[in-house]
């Protein structure tokens, strides 16, 4: 059965007509063309499809599109604060070599954003725990940890 879903995506009101069984991930990727969010497993194991819904990180493959009705969804396409301006995390990921194949990167960036929004001064353990639902198979995580720590420091400095 088709349903009309009205929601906010990256700050903009959007609507879409979706099957009631369609996942938020498929709706984002196929119906709205927001392919930055990746499908690594489609069963909630890998975290590649992490988006933020009403401030909480969500595996978009595990949420139905109809469940997003009236809610606010943030995806990788909305992480940049402005045209030609990068989020400090994006910049740090480039400088520190935190992205190799890049397939996990959008999900990890969204999870890291949530982590730093909640906890601006995370310990190493906080970062490790925060990313425990996101699989990266290329980097050994070392450079991802470095990038998140660096971004946290830069964001803190920018606030003060």
């Amino acid at each position, binding site marked *: 059965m088709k349903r009309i879903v009205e929601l906010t995506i990256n700050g903009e009101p959007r609507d879409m007509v979706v099957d009631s069984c369609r996942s938020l991930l498929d709706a984002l990727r196929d119906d709205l063309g927001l392919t930055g969010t990746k499908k*690594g497993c489609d069963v909630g194991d890998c975290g590649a499809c992490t988006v933020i819904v009403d401030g909480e990180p969500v595996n978009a493959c595990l949420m139905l599109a109809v469940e997003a009705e009236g809610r606010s969804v943030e995806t990788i396409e909305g992480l940049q604060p402005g045209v030609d301006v990068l989020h400090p995390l994006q910049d740090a990921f480039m400088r520190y070599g935190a992205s190799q194949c890049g397939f996990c990167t959008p999900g990890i960036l969204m999870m890291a954003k949530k982590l730093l929004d909640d906890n601006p001064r995370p310990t190493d353990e906080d970062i490790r725990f925060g990313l425990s639902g996101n699989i990266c198979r290329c980097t*050994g995580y070392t*450079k991802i940890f470095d990038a998140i720590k660096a971004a946290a420091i830069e964001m803190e400095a920018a606030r003060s």
Partner: protein
Amino acid sequence: MNMTTPIEQRDFKIVGKSVRRDDVLEKVTGEAEYTGDVKLSGMLHGKIKRAAIAHARIKSIDVSKALAYPGVKAVLTHENVPRVLHYGSPHPRSASCTKDQYILDDKVRFWGEGVAAVAAISEEIADEALDLIEVEYEPLPAVFEPEDAAQPGAPLIHDVGPGGNLVLDPVRINRGDVDAGFAQADFVLEGVFSGGRPHPAYMEPNVCIADWDGSNKLTFWTSTQTSFMVRGILAEVLGLPLTKVRVLVDHMGGGFGAKQDLFQHEFLCALLAKQTRRPVKMEFSRHETFVAGRSRHPCKIWLKQGFKNDGTLVARDMKLAYDSGAYGSHGPGVTIVGTTAATSLYRCENVRLEGRCVYTNTPINGAFRGYGVVQSYYALDIQMDEAAERLGMDPAELKLKNVVRAGDIAPSGHPILGHGLEICLQHGIDVLDWKKLRNRDRTPDPKRPHIRTGWGIGCEMHGSSAYPGIKEQGNATVKVNEDGTVTLLTGAAGLGTGAHTALAQIVAEELGVRFEDVGTIHGDTDVVPWDIGAFASHTTYLVGTAAKMAAGKVRTAVLERAAMKLQVSPAEIDLSEGKVFVITDPGRCMTVAQAMGPSRGIPAANIVANGTYEPTKSYSFAAHFAEVHVDTETGIVEVKRVIPVHDVGRVIHPIAAQGQIEGGIQQGIGHTLTEDYVIDKKTGRSLNAGLVDYKMPLSMDMPDIETIILEAAPDPGGPWGAKGVGEDPIIAIGPAIANAIHDAIGVRFRHYPITPEDVLKALREKAA
């Protein structure tokens, strides 16, 4: 590889700097387009019906209900696809592959093999239609273990090949006199080693899209490391002229070796698109990446070595048996490379090796980082540790005594250049103060008395090309545009390593322009020069040298053009950082843009040159030092700290090289401790084909890694001495961990993965 060729030294401007990779801005913004992100109008979705039986003949297959299902556009079975015997592993000019596959056959050889394919207007409809296909099987006796498959009278899985379920004739290598060597030995060690079936688990599931145009040309997007090999085999099997197949691949979500096969779904996708005259997309589920993907060959190794009391190794006798799974794929290459590698690493004049590779009714094993050498060096390195124990010697000392050195014969048959392994090992010993570590106070922490700590060393070496198995060719085209910018065209795949950035750095350095002025075009077989594929740790070494050659040629031409404009001879000018200047009078200068642009009757122009390079081989080296904590109550082994010391020759991009090493360690910790793709020994069914049940090290599991890269033994065969790095780390870390576990609890494990159950059982047996 030529020992007399000097390696050019220079004051590097770009090489050796961690410039911003050309692919990462798109990756952090979500704009990077992967194959699965491509959407064509009218695109159908393809799905594969997979057998729920490990070995059977198909008696009948009825697709009538599926074809009648609304939304279904085509169904393929073995009755309506071309029957062409073909290679799975698409390596060219190579004896190391086996023609044993059909697109679809009337026989099933493993649980999960495709028996039919459907194209429909949605993924859901295609999936539902699969259930409507009725297949009647005649079950055949199946074999799941190489030992059983190799027995006389075992059910035969293929009609082709040497018979007896062998994928290839046994690989035999004899050097010196092994029996005489053993006769000189003061003691002999003998052991059986084995390795599980780790799966590469790249984050991007296999995916392809096929689209035919009105001229019967196939455009094919696919996540592959070997786009030109895909083009070649697709054309051959589908009966098309080569240029009627165009393969496209932009960003790839990892591959780690496994995406260098020609997969069944790729043929089926092309055929479904042909039949429906509509684009068709086929995307694996995560489950399918296990079942229909490629894993590392499980291996059983019998190893016997003779030693003198001073630690000299006098004889090595080794038999290796690799499990190919249901098809040959890379089995021959893996067997040859893994067996041949065992001639080296630790010096021994008398060597007798025999490598076999056997079909079983299990999912296909293929290329995966380490290519047969993970298995053989795990055995060699652990037995070296055992010898040290027997001698009462420090394993570091024994390894230092025996590691290969300059002039020793490498597995490729060439003399080794430089003392790379010795330098890496010695460097780690010095940095860690290894002697002090060995003699540390081993009293357990009273707060955590059940934790035992241990340190171990693992050594490895690995070639930066597939030579001599494959005589490789690297190609590059470099263009200097009329505005002074530079375009590099390369067929090398960008599977996430940063290879294109390294190639652009090499071009900028050699040509004398800024890195930002070099753009890279890749991933289109209609446009870029032919490439053998991204594998064998060779892209920087092989394609990097070709790119340097091409850049050198355009540099000469740019200087000639600028000399004409500056009215001097080319010998009087130089080119650096995008500027041409008179050497004795640097004020007389022009930019490359000015040199290329129009002036006084000389029209603007492009300069284009190609580089083609056919290398032999170089070897990279590494010694890994690992600290583990073994919990004697739970059996859990935690890797706490790793100090990997690598010799990669000249480093082109330090951060990218470190990233390769750190990621390789992650995967190596996985296969050593937790990762094993398990096949049920009664049915052949996959038991853990998913990312929760297949246990990989994640953020909470990673040790502190303090990567050390030495430019210890640059190789003149690579650009300014650069060698490979991709596969090395995954080989060294395994034995380092196994040896560290022995140091912690005094138990010698000779297999992987070493699970908590194994540890607890061994501790119990030790206590009894």
